[in-house]
């Protein structure tokens, strides 16, 4: 059947896309943009099913997909510039944290926030309002953004600052690309004393122990995160390794390194897919990895010097570890809970760890207060993220059960990680959802900004 509107369309390649979890693939016509102008043109391209921007596809679920519509791949637009006097950076949306760090660190600057991978773009960082190990001190990505330019489906481009248009600015922070495509952004970057960190490690035999350590001690550290063993049960439920630190001053470094305190190397040791055998991450290997890794950590260690990749991006050393879960993929489930919801947190850890679902990367952190973004994820309290292998038919019900626990205490789920929550939960989890909808309707009255996540959750 020939479609007339199809005949008028530019000839963009049809590509199959998934998120990092490799689940729920869909196809879209992909515009490979190489500049901010091309991003803007892609968003306004004719499409019966709208458009959405895509960065490096590190969201786990379906946020950067748009089945049957247009997806604007921004990764070809990656220039940025630094003002070394102020630490203010202006970057195209497709610039990655990896690229930024290679440019910034030698000048003595760091990114304001980094997630557990450096392969995310500036556009993706804004759209998910990403958080890092410093959330308790520095907030999330958009707290550091001075301005951005947003391309809208009508072809217009708006310059947005928190002062000029606070509603649009904050709706875009965590707005999952559904309020427009960021084409470039200006943000403030902090100075660092060296490219190394001073790291303290504390191993805790159970959940209460690690929560207490974080409650009492996090304020003394710039960065803090706990890796939690989700295969441990019973007495050792929630056993964790807490790593906290700050950037070292040149004097903290070993003498040999002081001459070049901002040396920065970020290598991928293994990246060929063939080197990460499909399905290598199964319940058996993961139990083993978790056990070894927990035992390997010292009970207490103070003042260890670590590099940026070691401390912030250990997973990036294995480029395609996500393929380790096999062709069916996996998902990540991340919640935020109020500080006093410790019993619910324990119950959630218990449900997930006794279910024997496969879980490789599991992180527990204490968030500081959130920001005004209606869909921005962080809120003061605890955040837990766990990997879950797909394939076990009981996982769906288990996750619905833990979702209910989250909802009941006024917690929420992270959309950048989500791939299966019920759309009906969204309003309770994000009480300012209607405010967000009003802003979206004002900039996108025909609802042309759309993604698979948006369709699934009723956001577009």
């Amino acid at each position, binding site marked *: *059947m020939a*479609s007339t509107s199809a005949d008028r369309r530019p000839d963009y390649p*049809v590509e*199959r*896309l*998934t998120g990092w*979890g490799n*689940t*729920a*693939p*869909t*196809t*879209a016509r992909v515009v490979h943009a190489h500049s901010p102008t091309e991003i803007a043109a892609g968003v306004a391209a004719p499409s019966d*099913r709208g458009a959405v921007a895509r960065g490096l596809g590190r969201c786990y*679920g*379906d946020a950067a997909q*748009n*089945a*049957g*519509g247009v997806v604007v791949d921004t990764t070809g637009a990656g220039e940025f510039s630094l003002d070394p006097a102020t630490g203010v950076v202006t970057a195209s949306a497709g610039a990655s944290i990896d690229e930024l760090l290679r440019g910034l660190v030698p000048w003595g600057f760091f990114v304001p926030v980094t997630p557990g991978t450096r392969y995310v773009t500036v556009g993706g960082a804004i759209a998910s309002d990403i958080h890092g190990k410093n959330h308790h001190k520095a907030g999330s990505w958009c707290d550091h953004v001075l301005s951005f330019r947003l391309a809208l489906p009508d072809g217009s481009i708006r310059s947005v600052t928190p002062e000029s248009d606070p509603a649009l600015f904050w709706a875009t922070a965590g707005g999952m690309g559904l309020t427009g495509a960021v084409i470039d952004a200006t943000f403030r970057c902090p100075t660092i004393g060296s490219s190394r960190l001073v790291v303290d490690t504390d191993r805790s035999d159970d959940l209460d122990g690690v929560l207490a350590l974080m409650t009492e001690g996090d304020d003394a550290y710039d960065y803090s995160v706990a890796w939690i063993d989700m295969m441990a049960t019973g007495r050792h439920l929630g056993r964790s390794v807490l790593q906290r630190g700050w950037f070292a001053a040149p004097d903290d470094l070993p003498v040999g390194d002081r001459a070049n305190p901002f040396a920065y190397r970020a290598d991928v040791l293994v990246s060929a897919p063939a080197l990460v055998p499909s399905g290598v991450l199964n319940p058996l290997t993961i139990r083993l990895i978790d056990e070894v890794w927990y035992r390997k950590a010292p009970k207490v260690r103070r003042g260890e010097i670590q590099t940026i990749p070691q401390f912030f991006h250990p997973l990036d050393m294995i480029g395609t570890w996500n393929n380790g879960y096999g062709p*069916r*993929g996996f*998902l990540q489930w991340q919640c935020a809970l109020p500080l006093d919801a410790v019993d619910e947190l324990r119950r959630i850890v218990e449900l997930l760890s006794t279910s024997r679902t496969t879980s490789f990367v599991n992180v527990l952190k204490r968030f500081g207060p959130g920001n005004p973004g209606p869909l921005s994820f962080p809120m003061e309290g605890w955040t837990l993220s766990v990997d879950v292998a*797909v*394939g*076990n*038919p009981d*996982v*769906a019900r288990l*996750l619905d059960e833990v979702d209910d626990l989250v909802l009941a205490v006024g917690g929420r789920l992270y959309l950048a990680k989500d*791939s*299966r929550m*019920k759309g009906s939960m969204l309003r309770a989890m994000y009480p300012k959802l209607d405010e967000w909808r009003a802003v979206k309707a004002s900039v996108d009255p025909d609802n042309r900004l759309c993604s*698979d996540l948006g*369709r*699934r959750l009723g956001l577009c």
Partner: protein
Amino acid sequence: MKDALGSVQSALVLGGTSDIALAIVRRLVDDRCARVVLAGRDPGGLEKAAAGLSREGVEVATTPFDADDAEHHAAQIAAIFAEHGDLDLVLLAFGVLGTQDGFDADPASASRVVHTNLGGAVSASLAVAQQFRRQGHGTLVVLSSVAAERARKSNYVYGATKAGLDAFAQGLGDALAPLGIDVMVVRPGFVHTRMTEGMDAQPFATTPDAVADAVVRGLRRGATTVWAPGILRWVFAVMRHLPRPVWRIVSAR
């Protein structure tokens, strides 16, 4: 949209009064499915089926559809998608069994069954594939049968239609896989439904609910082939290779 765990939010049933299909759809609406379209040739039966599915927050619509009317499948199915929006899952459930005695007495009636079970299923599936390509996603669940694995002398016309359908659906699935479109082939054994009413049950006979559970588990796993009950996969792994004289005896009961 489908989600990472194989849950769907909308479904279309071709053969909307089928007992097996309705058991599957009941599972789907108990999960995240909030929009159902039942398509079939018996308006009264469809209304009854729709009433049986209705619950809070679930929209159920019915629409006329005749599997034998291949000429209109593409347009009709396009119209269903146009009216109801994205349909995440399509369940191809229609089929007729017939009796071998009937076919022997009236060869033309056998040809009509081939036309319904195979011809109609092929054109309807291809029409669905057009819509799935357009919407960029979708899961087609095709009710084949263990009869597709090896024809038995008691109903080899039906078996031949299912063998053709099964091969077609596998090929379609391979063709669409690169597009993120899934085709699941379901091979039930003997199921107690309207279709088999009054017949002697075969070994490993099962129920529509059990078939539905197997299909839902298959969706969760992203399976391309589902046997119901699961043991039939192994039974037929053997049956398929029995020498003809032995099969003739085994399949006679």
